[in-house]
């Protein structure tokens, strides 16, 4: 019972944050609501007893990605541009596609009876075991991930770096 209430609370926080992030006009409010949705998801991971993934989600998304998004909004001066429509001209097609995808997904979830009766396992994922697996079985993916993050860091800095004014007069 307590489990159900916790799930309902976290799920409503996540969904409300996601809807608000996609509907509001002020971009800073959108970013804050998206951070709320990410925090709700982290709480759901905790409720599913995936503690490490929950805390990683909280640190990476609520901590880092939300801050990056706010920085980008402020750097692109999106916060003070309120004129014009928020949606694009063909937004009804987008909504139609999203509705079709939702119907397809929910239909397939509901029509798989084995899925609903699956019992929850008493899963626990101690950090020690995660660390052992990362160092043994998943050592190659871990190293590759380090390489990828380094490349993304360098790429992000190079792409966003201000170009020299003499080389390209149009860039300020």
């Amino acid at each position: 019972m307590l489990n159900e209430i916790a799930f309902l609370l976290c799920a409503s926080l996540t969904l409300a944050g996601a809807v608000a992030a996609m509907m509001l006009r002020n971009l800073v409010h959108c970013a804050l609501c998206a951070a709320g949705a990410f925090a709700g998801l982290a709480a759901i991971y905790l409720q599913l007893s995936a503690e490490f993934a929950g805390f990683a989600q909280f640190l990476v998304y609520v901590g880092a990605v939300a801050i990056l998004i706010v920085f980008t909004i402020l750097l692109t001066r999106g916060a003070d541009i309120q004129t014009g429509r928020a949606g694009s001209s063909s937004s009804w097609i987008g909504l139609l596609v999203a509705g079709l995808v939702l119907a397809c997904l929910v239909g397939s979830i509901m029509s798989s009876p084995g899925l609903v009766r699956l019992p929850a396992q008493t899963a626990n994922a101690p950090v020690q075991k995660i660390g052992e697996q990362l160092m043994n079985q998943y050592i190659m993916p871990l190293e590759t991930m380090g390489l990828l993050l380094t490349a993304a860091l360098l790429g992000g800095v190079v792409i966003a770096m201000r170009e020299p004014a003499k080389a390209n007069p149009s860039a300020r």
Partner: protein
Amino acid sequence: MTTPLANYLILAALLFVIGLAGALTRRNAVLVLIGLELMFNAANLNFIAFWRFNPHPEKLTGLMFVLFSIAIGAAEAAVGLALIIAVYRHRRSALMDQFNSLKG
């Protein structure tokens, strides 16, 4: 009494569709990126839910996939936001329907 698996899957489906609708309909590039991140997170939630409900949770496969997936999501957000800043510097705009030429 625990929450059944289908509830988590439906929550993930709703989150995915909200992100998809936002990414398809909003004009601002930053909001499109937030929509992409929401879809990414919906997929992660599916992995965690299936890990929790499968017969061998001690193998930690779904959990490991989500850890790597979160790292990839962070890298994607960093590069995507850097691209938005770079395009904004050229076009003086962050609206998707004004990024319609390849001349830069």
